[in-house]
């Protein structure tokens, strides 16, 4: 790996000696490795990317506009449909924003269960990311392994909420349901299973020569540039920025648990992989603490039957598996729906950085980079 040709990092202009011309290659919107309907128009010099135009909007459903015409409670259901592989995180972000707007206190038990759901969701989302990212690069087995564990989490969610993907699992002020009897024991068993499986992923990838060749030094971005570009979540932490909403602006019950925020050093695809792999372990650590210390008590705070927050606006962010998901909500104080509903989608902001990341790399690396920033087009386009 040491003698890797680093000239790939620079943008080279074609030599005037040869009669070369740029080629424009259209990738997507129907492409198996774009994780949805993403279109990238690549300008190529041979096999090297000179520039890329990322085209989004193929999955635009107008969720923000729809939410402005729905009840405050009905919106929870729509937030499921944004990041459909991490629905519980969007639920949590939305409910917390409305609670902030109404100054509602959420009972401690509800905050603990929310934390457990959020962290299970993070593991499920990272499993999906790991499987598809590895498959894009050519490691088929990891995909099967990761989906095997994700299935266990979906079973847990199914037992809790009745759904496997769109959970509708939170309510403004708390939770719709208490956890079913014996569920906490199953979560603990899952943690033990997951712990042993993480080693399997690492054996397959972390020291795998092909994996290293395909991910090391690909898409290097340093901390200040990543901040300026608005990258968030594990993509930002891979560049060595210790930014995690769970630590910096604690929500739910995160201020009561011990956990570390893993950061990378070089800011390449391999570091982003290592960061997410470590996040598996930290999530398990949080879940174990939350299940062990699960307090008794009510699961819903004091919320009026008709939800009508006072006139005002607020922005509240939480850490979804993809990064900082923020909700900016304006209430006019007299109608039963928000006047303005805005989501700051983490995938959107990470995808914006793709143009910068792919420059100077090979076409095959574009696929690795799309996987490495972990996007869900349902959330990018809304």
């Amino acid at each position: 790996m040491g003698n890797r040709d680093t000239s790939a990092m620079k943008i080279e202009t074609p030599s005037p000696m040869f009669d070369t011309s740029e080629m424009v290659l259209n990738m997507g919107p129907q492409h198996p490795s774009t994780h949805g309907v993403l279109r990238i128009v690549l300008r190529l010099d041979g096999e090297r990317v000179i520039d890329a135009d990322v085209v989004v909007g193929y999955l635009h459903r107008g969720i923000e506009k729809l939410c402005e015409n729905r009840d405050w409670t009905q919106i929870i259901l729509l937030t499921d449909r944004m990041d459909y592989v991490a629905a519980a995180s969007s639920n949590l972000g939305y409910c917390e924003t409305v609670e902030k707007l109404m100054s509602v206190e959420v009972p401690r038990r509800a905050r603990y269960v929310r934390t457990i759901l959020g962290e299970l969701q993070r593991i499920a989302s990272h499993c999906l990311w790991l499987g598809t990212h590895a498959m894009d690069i050519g490691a088929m087995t990891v995909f099967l392994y990761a989906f095997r564990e994700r299935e266990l989490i979906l079973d847990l969610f199914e037992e809790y909420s009745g759904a496997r993907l769109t959970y509708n699992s939170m309510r403004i002020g708390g939770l719709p349901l208490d956890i079913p009897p014996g569920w906490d024991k199953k979560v603990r068993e899952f943690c033990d299973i997951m712990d042993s499986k993480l080693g399997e992923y690492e054996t397959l990838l972390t020291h795998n020569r092909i994996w290293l060749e395909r991910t090391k030094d690909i898409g290097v971005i340093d901390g200040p540039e990543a901040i300026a570009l608005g990258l968030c979540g594990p993509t930002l932490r891979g560049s060595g920025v210790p930014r995690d909403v769970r630590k910096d602006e604690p929500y739910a019950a995160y201020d009561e648990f011990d956990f570390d925020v893993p950061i990378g050093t070089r800011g390449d695809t391999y570091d982003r992989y290592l960061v997410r792999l470590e996040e598996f372990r930290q999530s398990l650590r949080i879940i174990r603490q939350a299940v062990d210390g699960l307090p008794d008590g009510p699961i819903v705070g004091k919320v009026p039957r008709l939800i009508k927050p006072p006139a005002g606006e607020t922005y509240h962010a939480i850490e979804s598996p993809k990064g900082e998901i923020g909700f900016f909500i304006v209430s006019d104080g007299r109608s039963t729906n928000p006047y303005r509903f805005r989501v700051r989608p983490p995938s959107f902001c990470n995808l914006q950085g793709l143009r910068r990341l792919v420059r100077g790399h090979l076409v095959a690396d574009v696929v690795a980079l799309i996987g490495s920033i972990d996007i869900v087009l349902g959330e990018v386009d809304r």
Partner: protein
Amino acid sequence: MPDESKPERPVAPLPSSRPEGVSPPPAKPKPAPKAPPAAPTAPPDPPPPEDVNEPAFLTGFRATHGTSIEMVSYWVGDWTVIVSLSSLVDVANYLRDAPDAAFDYCSDVTATDWPPRSQRFDVIYCLYSTQHRHRVRIKVRAAADEPVPSVTGVWPAANWLEREVYDMFGVNFTGHPDRRRLLMPDEWQGHPQRKDYPLEGPGEFLMENPQDWLRLRNLRDETEIE
């Protein structure tokens, strides 16, 4: 069933019960049509209460850019500074570079639409400092065609976010390196997040008057509450 004993509509007396030659009583004058409720107005942006300490960066911000600040507001723990449109880029540069502010991370750029107001758009910048871990929102007000300077030069993250605001609201950003639509097709007519843009129906249909939309919305609100 209480509904059966109390009919909803008064039953008209039978014609035979009225004595001959007596004219029917004059019809009650119809109640005057209810005045439509006033249009929703922007949130009041309440000033900070006495017992809340201003964050440190705001003191320096006031000292250097006092004339640009129109209002400082505090609501449910969020600080919002409303600044004049002409000084936006100045303010953005100051907030990014001043050591006690250091807002190096532009979380979000968005807008809200308040049609009856002459400056109908609020353009909102949600900023965060990775160094001090504090937040602030900057708000500017703009009329429908008024140019809003782009802050892409200050925070490259604003590129797509401003494109989305342009796409959805038609806010006229100037100095943007790549001002195209983002989510809607390039040839789309209208800006879907505007309040006078209908929720349903063909996209080309636009209500000509924002007041039409307000009337519809108020009608719907009333029926929902009943």
